[in-house]
């Protein structure tokens, strides 16, 4: 059974806060839920499916269902880190197609900035029950140095340079200048990135995403409901998901699970990378974008450095406008999970509701790409292809 055309994203909402010391986690989830439902023209009483991941408080979906006093007949708490929400949209479309729910609410929220988390440089705790950590945590793997190893290997195999990686941040900053909510709104240059402090070779501070509080939510509905609402029709036409690890010790850092999640989504949608007019690409680090662009087929493996250089990702300038909200690199990375905001900006583009300075003209086909976990060890990827009807 294909999900193509079986569900629509009717509501989308990004919390404007980037620092929320006076809000609770549950409150942030509830605020984005109300925001997305209001955007769709629906209410809490219309929700019969609820989707969340590990950022939600309590066990799975139960605390938030209870907090919001929802009457649900379908729940899904699949947690694949930052890409969970793209998978939730796909699973919601499946559930709707199977008749298990009609109005699916997906929420994300978190307050790592208020809680003072050193997200990118903190080493994961050792837990002997998790089979990998005893053989990794003692050596100090954090996020920054794991992605640093991915970047270093890419440079070795394909000649990718720090200047090319920097262009990804430069493009994001060009977009963020128009986003009044973005944490970092200053336009930066390649030199600014290279001159920023080294965090974990070869990644500089400006190769890393921001740490922010906030959240977002989307509402996925069955076609008849979407057509009864007063919002532009954003149809889910393809989805793919994957998990890739260390391959039993045959570690290969040159590609990600986006290779298979992307291929599955493109096949289901019946479109190809050159058809995509706008792409939201998960950007925990600049290298995250570069490797996924290759794996999705926007350019050949190893050509990502040349592809992103010289402003090719800047809306109105290059061939593939990406992350026109400023992305995780400049705008927002709520709960250390960037997947939800990737969906939301793709919806804005398809509705024609992005900032006029970055809006892609007559945007009818968009892709959202997520990564969860660590590309340096084990990670999940998910791809969504969305169409304006």
């Amino acid at each position, binding site marked *: 059974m294909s999900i193509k055309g079986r569900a629509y994203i009717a509501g989308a909402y990004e919390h404007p806060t980037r620092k929320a010391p006076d809000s609770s986690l549950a409150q942030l989830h509830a605020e984005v839920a109300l925001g997305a439902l209001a955007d769709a023209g629906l209410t809490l009483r219309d929700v019969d499916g609820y989707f969340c991941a590990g950022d939600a408080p309590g066990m799975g979906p139960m605390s938030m269902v209870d907090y919001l006093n929802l009457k649900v007949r379908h729940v899904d708490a699949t947690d694949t880190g930052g890409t969970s929400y793209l998978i939730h949209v796909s699973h919601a479309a499946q559930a709707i197609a199977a008749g298990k729910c009609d109005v699916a609410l997906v929420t994300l929220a978190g307050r790592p900035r208020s809680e003072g988390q050193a997200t990118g*440089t903190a080493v994961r705790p*050792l837990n*002997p*029950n998790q*089979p*990998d950590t*005893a*053989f*990794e945590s*003692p*050596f*100090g*793997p*954090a996020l*920054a*140095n*794991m992605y*640093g*190893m*991915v*970047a*270093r*290997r890419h440079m*070795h195999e394909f000649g990718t340079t720090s200047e090319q990686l920097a262009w990804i941040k430069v493009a994001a900053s060009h977009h963020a200048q128009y986003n009044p909510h973005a944490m970092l709104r200053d336009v930066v240059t390649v030199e600014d990135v290279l001159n920023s*402090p*080294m*965090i*974990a*070779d*070869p*990644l500089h501070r400006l190769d890393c995403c921001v740490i922010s509080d906030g959240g977002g939510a989307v509402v996925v509905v069955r076609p008849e409901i979407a057509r009864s609402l007063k919002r532009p029709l954003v149809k889910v036409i393809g989805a793919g998901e994957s998990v890739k690890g*260390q*391959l*039993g*010790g*045959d*570690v290969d*850092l040159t590609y990600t699970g986006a290779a298979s999640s992307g291929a599955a989504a493109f096949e289901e949608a019946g479109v190809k990378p050159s058809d995509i007019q706008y792409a939201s690409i998960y950007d925990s680090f600049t290298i995250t974008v570069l490797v996924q662009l290759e794996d999705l087929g926007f350019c050949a493996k190893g050509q990502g450095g040349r592809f992103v250089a010289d402003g090719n990702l800047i809306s109105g300038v290059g061939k593939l406008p990406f992350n026109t909200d400023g992305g995780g690199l400049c705008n927002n990375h709520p709960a250390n999970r960037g997947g939800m905001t990737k969906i939301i900006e793709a919806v804005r583009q398809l509705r024609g509701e992005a900032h006029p300075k970055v809006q892609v003209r007559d945007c009818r086909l968009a892709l959202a790409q997520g990564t969860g976990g660590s590309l340096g*060890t084990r990670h999940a990827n998910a791809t969504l292809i969305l169409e304006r009807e």
Partner: protein
Amino acid sequence: MAVKNEALARIANPETKVFWEAAARGGLRLPKCTSCGRFHWYPRRICPHCGSTTIEMHAAKGTGEVYSYSIMRRAKVPYAIAYVRLTEGTTMMTNVVDCDFDDIQIGMPVKLVFRDSPEGYPLPMFTKA
């Protein structure tokens, strides 16, 4: 010895005890499947390549080369994390120690050294060969 046993208890589980006990004696043991003949990493009782449960632990040659690395500059004491591709063909996460960070390169030959963690369990690390 009692202290060391406590330290090992913090890192080992019933499946990986044999590995850490060998490490406490200064040896790196690698799991090899007698069914498909392949080494794997990290150690398991079930082969990730073929699903067989006939795993034997073999003494490693203790040599390999750097597959990739990164220097964590933001740590109080900067350190080099790496994937080392062992001569046996499998790749493990480790630290490269006792050498200038600027000397580390992908493809650099390395050899095994053991270092105790702050908690007292032995860790297989590598240095320039």
